Structure formats: C-alpha cells, structure tokens
C-alpha cells in the first residue's frame, strides 16, 4: 500500500516537474512574440518556473522506490557540481577555443578565419614585449620568493624569541587581496619611497619607480615577493618541522656547525617541498593580474621596436586590455588560449618532475 502510494506520488511529481520545465522553456524561447494574454504574464516568472520544475522532477525521481536507488543518488549527488562546473568551465572553455579561430566580437561571429587572430598578435611589438616582461617577471619572482621564503623559514624555525609572531607577521600580506595591496604600494612607491630618497639625498630613488618604463616592473616584483614569501615560508616551515630532530642532533654530535647542518642536512631533506614551492610560485607569478592592475595598470609607456607600448603589461593584463580597452575580443581570446597552453606546459613539467622525484625516493 505504502509502496504504491509512494510510487504514485513520485511519478506525479516527476511528470508535473517535467511538464512545468518544458512549458517554461517553451515560453523562454519565444517570449518576445508573446505580448498579451495569460502566457505573457508568465514571461517574467519563467526563471522561477524553470527552477521549480527542475526541483519537482528531482524530488520525484528521488522518491521513486526502486532497487536502483543507489544509481539515482549517484546521479543526483553529482548533478550540482557537474552542472555548475560544465557551465562555468567546460562550455566556456570549448567556446573560447572555438571563438579564437573566428572573428567573434563578443556578441556575434560571422566568419571562421583559422589562425588569423594568432598570426595577428604574434608579430605585434606590444605582445612580444608583454611576453618577455612576463617571462622575466615570472622567473625573477619565483627565485626571489623562494630564496626569501627559505631564509625566513630558517629564521622562524630557529630558537629566536617571538618566532610565532614573526610567522604571523610574514604571512599576513598573503591574506589580503592584490587589488587592495596594489593601491597601498602605489602610494608607497610614489610618495613614501621618493620622500625618503629626498630626505636622505639619494638621487637614484628620487624619481618614482613607477614612472620609469624599464624599472617599473621591479616594483611589481617587490610587492609580489612581499605578498607571497610568507605563504611559501609556511610550506618550508612545515617541511623543516618534519625533519627528525634525531638526525639534526646526530649531526651536531659529529661536530657539524649551524651552517653545515642547514646546507647538508635540512636542505636536502626538504628537497621535495622545493618542487612544490617552485611550481606554485611559477604558476602564480605567471598568472599575476591584481597587483599589475592596481600598481601600474600597464604603464608607463615606452618605445619598443618602433612602437609605443605599455612597459609593464603582463600577459594576464594584456589579455584583459585587449578585450575591454581595445575591444578585440577574438584576438584577446586567442591570446588567452596561448596563455592556457603555456600554463599547461608548466603543469605537465611539474607532474613530470614530481613523478621523477617519487621514483628516486
């Protein structure tokens, strides 16, 4: 009895749900032609109808009494994540790759033009410069962050007083968004640093770093290092704390001094975290956008290969500006695809290196 009742309710819910959904979708598809009458009054609530229909269907399917209940649960449990994920990542990604081969202008596209977009920007001085700047930025930033983070981690794992406060202090910049930090540092470079330089009579620094086309990139490197070093430091700290004290003690007994203990014992033992940290900083630096946007926003301009270009426009910002300032949607999309390929190569390298490490160990 109960079984039959449940089955009826479940089927009823499912059928009503499906009908409502299809009906609402049908309204959605031709709502522009519906101007009067009962249907037109439903146009404004078509979104609610669709959602209600879907919820009804899901409830109906969920309550259906069957031996395959497990399969139904599997599907229902996967549905929200898979749906959101495919609608925000997979579909736009596929569309994006496709658009990069067309003359898409953000709304419509007329022609399939093959590699025209790619050909267009690969030769442009602006892109070549942006590419090189990103390369320099990424490598310098990766090196600086890791060197400073390692130094800091050794400092805060030594026996100094207040090491926990130091850890927190070094870590804090990493918690605050690049946009907010960027504006603060823009102020520091433009007013504080120049003010100190004038007071101390240092000629080299009396002009703001941000107004020098060839040096402005170092401002972003400084801030980025400051922001990430504390984070990477904590990863090294975790690794160093994992080094067994007995090993360090034994080295001490054998007469190894502090420096030797660090270079010969600690550093080799935390080699694994080097791979993690190096790739983490490589990828993060390569994707740098927020600081770039807030500190220099690409400027100042300079001449490069006979053309005026922005001197600190890293690739991520270059894509953004190509799309929204210069209104070249298709070219921006093609640049983004190249951006993705470069990142994918870095990630593949990371997988390769960590696999290799695992084999060795």
């Amino acid at each position, binding site marked *: 009895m109960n079984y039959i009742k449940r089955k009826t309710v479940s089927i009823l819910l499912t059928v009503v749900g499906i009908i409502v959904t299809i009906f609402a979708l049908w309204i959605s598809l031709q709502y522009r032609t519906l101007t009067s009458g009962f249907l037109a009054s439903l*146009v404004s609530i078509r*979104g609610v109808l*669709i959602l209600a229909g879907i919820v009804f269907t899901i409830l109906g399917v969920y309550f259906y009494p069957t031996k395959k*209940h497990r399969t139904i*649960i*599997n599907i229902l*449990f*996967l549905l*929200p*994540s*898979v749906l*959101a*994920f495919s*609608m*925000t*990542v997979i579909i736009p*990604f596929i*569309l*994006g790759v496709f658009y990069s081969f067309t003359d898409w202008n953000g709304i419509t596209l007329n022609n399939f033009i093959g590699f025209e977009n790619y050909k267009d920007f690969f030769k442009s001085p602006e892109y070549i410069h942006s590419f090189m700047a990103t390369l320099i930025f990424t490598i310098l930033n990766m090196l600086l962050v890791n060197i400073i983070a390692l130094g800091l981690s050794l*400092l*805060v794992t030594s*026996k*100094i*007083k*207040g090491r926990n*406060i*130091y850890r*927190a202090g*070094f*870590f*804090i910049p990493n*918690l*605050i968004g690049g*946009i*907010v930090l960027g*504006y*603060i540092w823009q*102020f*520091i470079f433009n*007013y*504080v640093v120049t*003010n*100190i330089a004038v007071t101390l009579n240092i000629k080299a620094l009396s002009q703001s770093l941000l107004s020098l086309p060839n040096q402005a990139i170092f401002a972003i490197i400084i801030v980025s290092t*400051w922001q990430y070093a504390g984070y990477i430091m904590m*990863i090294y700290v975790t690794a160093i704390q994992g080094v067994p004290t007995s090993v360090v003690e034994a080295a001490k007994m054998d007469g190894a001094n*502090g420096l030797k203990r660090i270079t010969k014992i600690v550093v080799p033992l935390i080699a694994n*975290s080097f791979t*993690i940290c190096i790739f*983490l900083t490589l990828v993060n630096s390569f*994707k740098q*956008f*927020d600081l770039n946007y807030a500190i220099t926003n690409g400027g100042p301009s300079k001449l490069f290969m006979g053309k005026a270009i922005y001197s600190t426009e890293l690739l*991520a910002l270059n*894509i*953004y500006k190509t799309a929204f300032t210069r209104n070249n949607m298709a070219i921006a*999309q093609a640049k*983004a*695809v190249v*951006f*993705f390929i470069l990142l994918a190569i870095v990630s593949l390298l990371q997988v390769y290196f960590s696999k290799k490490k695992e084999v060795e160990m």
Partner: protein
Amino acid sequence: MTLKKIRGLILELVGILLFLLFLAPFFIVVINSSKTNGDIIRDPLSFPLNWSLLLEHIKAVINSPNMNYWRSFLDSAIITILSLTAIVIFSSMAAWVLVRNHKKWSTVIFMIFVAAMVIPFQVVMLPLLSWFRKLSDISGIAFLSSYTGIVFAYVGFGSSMTIFILHGFIKNIPYELEEAALIDGSSPEGVFFRIILPLLKPVQMTVLILNGIWIWNDFLLPSLMLGLNGKVKTLPLAVTSFVGSYVKQWDLILTSTLLAMLPVVILFLFAQKYIIKGMVEGAIK
C-alpha cells in the same frame, strides 16, 4: 659561548628588522589615514597630529556612494558564505560518489575535474560573459549582476580543486563503516549525511579557508560579472571604484584600503592557526 650569544643576538635583530619591514606598509596606511592630504604628500612618514581625523575619514569612506562600506561588506559576506556552503556540500557529495564507484565513468569525471585545475580564468572569462548573458536572457534567471550568478560561478570554479582535495581524503575512510550502516538499513544518502559528512570536518576546514580567502579577495571574476558600479558590489570592487572616483585623495583612499583589510585581519587574529594550516595543506595537496 660568547660567539654563540652574539650570533643569537644578531638573529634576533634580523628577525625584528624583517618583521618591521614586512609590516611597514600597514603601518604607513594607518598613520596616513589620519592626516590631511597635504600632510600626507609633505611627509608620509610623520605621525599624525590628531587621531580624530581617522574617525572623520572612516565616516567619509563608509558613507561615500562609491564605497558604501556596509553594503559592500554585506555583499562580500553573502557571496562568500553562500558560495562556501554550496561548494562544501556539493563537492563533498560529488567526491563521495566518485570515490565509492570504481567504474570507468567515475574515473573519467574525476580526471576532467583534476585536469581543469590547469585552466586559467582568462581563457574562459570572455565566452563565460557572453554565454551567461545569453542564458539570463533566455531563462529569465539573472546570471549577471546578481548573487545567483556569481555564487553559481564560484561553485563551478571552486569544485575542481575542492573535489580533488576531498577525493584524497574520502579514499582513506574505510568502506566498512558505510557497509555496516547499509546493513543496518540506512539509505545511501543517509550514510553520506550521517556518517561521511561529519567525518570530513577536518578537511572541510582546509577547503573553507582556501576557497574563502580566494572568493573574498577575488577581483577579476566579480568585476566582470557584477560590474564596478553595479548594484551588487564586493569589497575589492568597492575599493577600486572608490579609488577611481577619488583620484589622488590619498587620505581617503588609504582609509578605504584600511577598512577593506580590516575584516580579514580581524579574522586572522582569531583563527590564525587554522588559516595558516588550511592554506599550507591546500598547497601541499
């Protein structure tokens, strides 16, 4: 012995100096938030003459139509909390199904989620915008300039990494636990909500912190989906829009950054241990 002492002292000194250097930017923000614009330009390193100016600046920033502090704070909080709740529940559900089914489809879906972690936002942002615009136009559900759309997007973008982390954790939960409950007559969804979900608590902390910091500070996604001057505005957007309209008014700009940083700093002071642990664990996995 003395050499060791001197070395220790030098280390202490280096520590203090570095600490001060790292926190100097925040110090600069605080002192300059309480000066007039003229004083700031003249001498950005001097102490303010009277601290009451700070209150006035805070009031001005909070009430500015570009910043609208309480409203932006609330928007940020609502978006972050809704997204986190949805990400945690939905990703746990998906990860559990993917772990407990040893089939080809579960491996394939999991591999797609993992591989997608490489996809940078830049490559999907332009099609995402036009596609969401089309979707809202057809369905009547607002995907842009609304909580719904941005929360939906965060669930999509956050699920990759979250499912990856949770997958690794659930794998280590013995299946016998679930079997016992199933034999006792529990439904599979009952097993998940009553046994698995409570067991995930330690790793959920990592997931919450990693996603929370990202969503709270995110700029590019909300700037595209909500617009810099839209109805719904997160704190990073509010600061950007504020800076754009108060060019060179550094007294107010610095106060606005101070106010924007405050919530996270306060949270950090209370939950320092969890935050550091969560972020480090997320990176190692």
